[in-house]
């Protein structure tokens, strides 16, 4: 046993050394640095910390774009966090990033009303800060308090995203046939703006299409933290089911609701397509009932599988979803911090002199062919946000750039424009 322990010790020591060496040597390849990648670099060298909320296809794609495409061209280095799921972990990463010499923080974890605390923390270390989020009553103070290190935020155009779902339901729903709807409102009850907009638009679409009146307001239904029947005067079965799949018992509750046989539409305001797929398939099989799935999604294996598979009735497993181009969103975030770091903070301010929020529009996808086409665009060899586009958001490369002009440039990068360039 002693021999075993000593042997184990040696193996562990060798393994540890190898890992540390691998980790250290991997740094230049995972964190972009000046001159690598064969691109000529220009601009001052900056180190930027990126707070990731989850590790998935999107975050991997984002890291590739930042490290392999942006870093060499703009002479920047990027440092990525582990998964940060609360304010404390964000603060810890910011502190560690400061120790590691970062000049700015891009935060993909929307902390909402705690934005100010992170801006203040970054200010203590002299770092610029931007966040994937909007401007609302909870974080209004950070926009009006003139923090020199706050570059403003970036996020999806939430009403436009919600409208995609409204429009699709309007186009595809046959109201002459009896339907029941389960609406997965996600974290809307916690104030998640995107999930609130999508849930609200879904309920509004049903209201308008059936000409019904809810007993409660749509705002109340969406904000409910407990499952609630959206009782209405037309007797349409609509069930709002909040929460996330990571919550204990959530999936079981969703499955139980479907097993009542009342619902044949699953309207999902947050990205849980792969998590609900099995439950839906089981109920379809058990009740011999076709369930149509419309839900928020993102590029990746989950959506590709869902779009390319059919249920027992021969229909697409997911009828409609939404996607965004990772590099487009990343370009917005990068432009925010880069403009501040290069002394062009004015380009991050709106007409009132307050930090602006840059918006991007998501795209609807309804077929596997369309998904395949769009998936092929935002990849290593042909990024949606190429150097020309990134330059159009940077004040030191686009003379007289304002935030409004940057916003126009972002909106111009839509499906048609991308198809014309990359299609």
């Amino acid at each position: 046993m002693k021999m075993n322990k000593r042997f184990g010790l040696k193996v562990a020591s060798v393994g540890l050394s190898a890992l540390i060496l691998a980790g250290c040597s991997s740094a230049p390849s995972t964190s972009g640095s000046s001159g690598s990648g064969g691109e000529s670099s220009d601009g001052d060298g900056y180190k930027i910390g990126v707070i990731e909320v989850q590790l998935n296809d999107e975050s991997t794609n984002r890291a590739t774009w930042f490290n392999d495409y942006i870093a060499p061209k703009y002479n920047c280095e990027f440092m990525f966090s582990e998964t940060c799921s609360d304010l404390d972990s964000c603060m810890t990463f910011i502190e560690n990033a400061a120790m590691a010499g970062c000049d700015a923080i891009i935060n993909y974890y929307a902390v909402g009303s705690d934005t100010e605390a992170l801006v203040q923390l970054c200010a203590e270390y002299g770092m610029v800060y931007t966040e994937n989020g909007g401007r609302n009553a909870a974080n209004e103070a950070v926009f009006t308090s003139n923090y020199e290190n706050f570059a403003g935020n970036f996020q999806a155009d939430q009403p436009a995203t919600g409208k995609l779902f409204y429009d699709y339901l309007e186009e595809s729903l046959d109201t002459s046939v009896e339907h029941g709807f389960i609406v997965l409102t996600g974290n809307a009850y916690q104030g998640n703006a995107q999930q609130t907009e999508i849930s609200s638009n879904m309920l509004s679409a049903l209201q308008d299409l059936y000409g019904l009146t809810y007993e409660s307001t749509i705002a109340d239904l969406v904000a409910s933290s407990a499952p609630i029947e959206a009782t209405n005067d037309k007797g349409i079965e609509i069930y709002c089911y909040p929460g996330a799949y990571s919550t204990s018992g959530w999936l079981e509750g969703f499955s139980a609701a479907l097993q009542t046989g009342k619902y044949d539409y699953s309207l999902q305001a947050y990205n849980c397509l792969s998590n609900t797929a099995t439950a839906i398939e089981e109920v379809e099989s058990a009740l011999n009932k076709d369930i149509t799935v419309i839900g928020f999604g993102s590029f990746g294996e989950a959506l590709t599988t869902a779009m390319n598979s059919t249920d027992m009735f021969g229909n697409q497993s997911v009828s409609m979803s939404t996607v965004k181009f990772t590099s487009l969103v990343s370009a917005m975030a990068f432009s925010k911090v880069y403009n501040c770091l290069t002394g062009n903070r004015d380009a991050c301010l709106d007409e009132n002199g307050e930090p602006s929020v840059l918006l991007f529009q998501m795209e609807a996808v309804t077929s596997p062919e369309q998904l395949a086409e769009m998936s092929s665009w935002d990849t290593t060899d042909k990024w949606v946000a190429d150097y020309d586009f990134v330059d159009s958001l940077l004040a030191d490369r686009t003379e007289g750039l304002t935030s409004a002009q940057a916003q126009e440039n972002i909106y111009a990068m839509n499906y048609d424009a991308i198809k014309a360039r990359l299609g």
Partner: protein
Amino acid sequence: MSAASGMAIQKQSPKLTLADRIDIIKNKRFFPLAFPLAMLAVLVVLFAVLTGGQFLQGSVVKNIFNQSFIVGTMATAVAFIYSTGNIDFSVGNVMGLACVFGALAYEVTESMPVMIAVTLVGGIALMMCNCTLCIACHIKPAMVAIVAMSIYSALCTVLVGADPIRVDYQASKALEGGFRYGTFILYFLVCLILYHRTAIGRKLRFIGGNETCAVQTGINTTKAQIIAFVFAGVGVGLAGVYQTIRTTSVAQTVGSGMGMDVMLATVLGGMSIFGGTKSNVYAGLIGAITVTVLNTGLLMLGVSSTMIQGVRGVIFLLLVFLNSERQKTLPSRQQF
């Protein structure tokens, strides 16, 4: 004849192998403290060398302490419970709910002293709830913890709602200096003395080592359990105060998952979560600092986040491996 050969055997000087010598060192009383500290020192020196001395800058050291405070305080607190051979991993949720109580009190009174008092009392009261369930219903603390985690988490969600409860930033930052260091040192010293220099600590360790024997020697295990939970409650409440003044807001997810961090810190610090005679009250703090040193050091070296998880995992395994006794018999509380 046989007597002569027996004499000959006794005259032979004992030959100790390296493994025997290591075993002797490991059985020394100082070893449980010295080993984790030595490992921590090795890591600090390693990172200091690899970062060209940057790792020893004042701001980095301060940063490491700041990040270790909360888990370190909680780990110090739960040492009282772990010593008795019981596990309570609901401490993260207890801290979270205590934070919510404190933040709500601040919302009403806008007084930091009130926030601190309510958080502290909340921590103690909630730990006493756990204790009461254990004693009154004769349920193991681990089982109570499972239920308590769900209840406290649900209460946090209901009480906080969509938006976190804010606490004044400037007032919070003012408390991060002297107040935080002072209260922590005071609490830690009190725990150290109580645990290692009074009958309270000895009884708790005795119960963890062999509860039946402890009962037969006249130790009141119920009373000891209450004492353990009260001291744990004070520490958890204090950690709640530190959490609130660090983040200056309390969200509904506060403290969730922290119970596991506390357990990890305790094990890394060289203490068995199954208690026993070798338990100590400082293991959690050392473990918490070790975790933070690793995270900060690896990031400063430019190790990518995905690699950090792997490197950290291997180092944790190695530390636990080196600091643990392999079982020669069936598991008991005295062994890992």
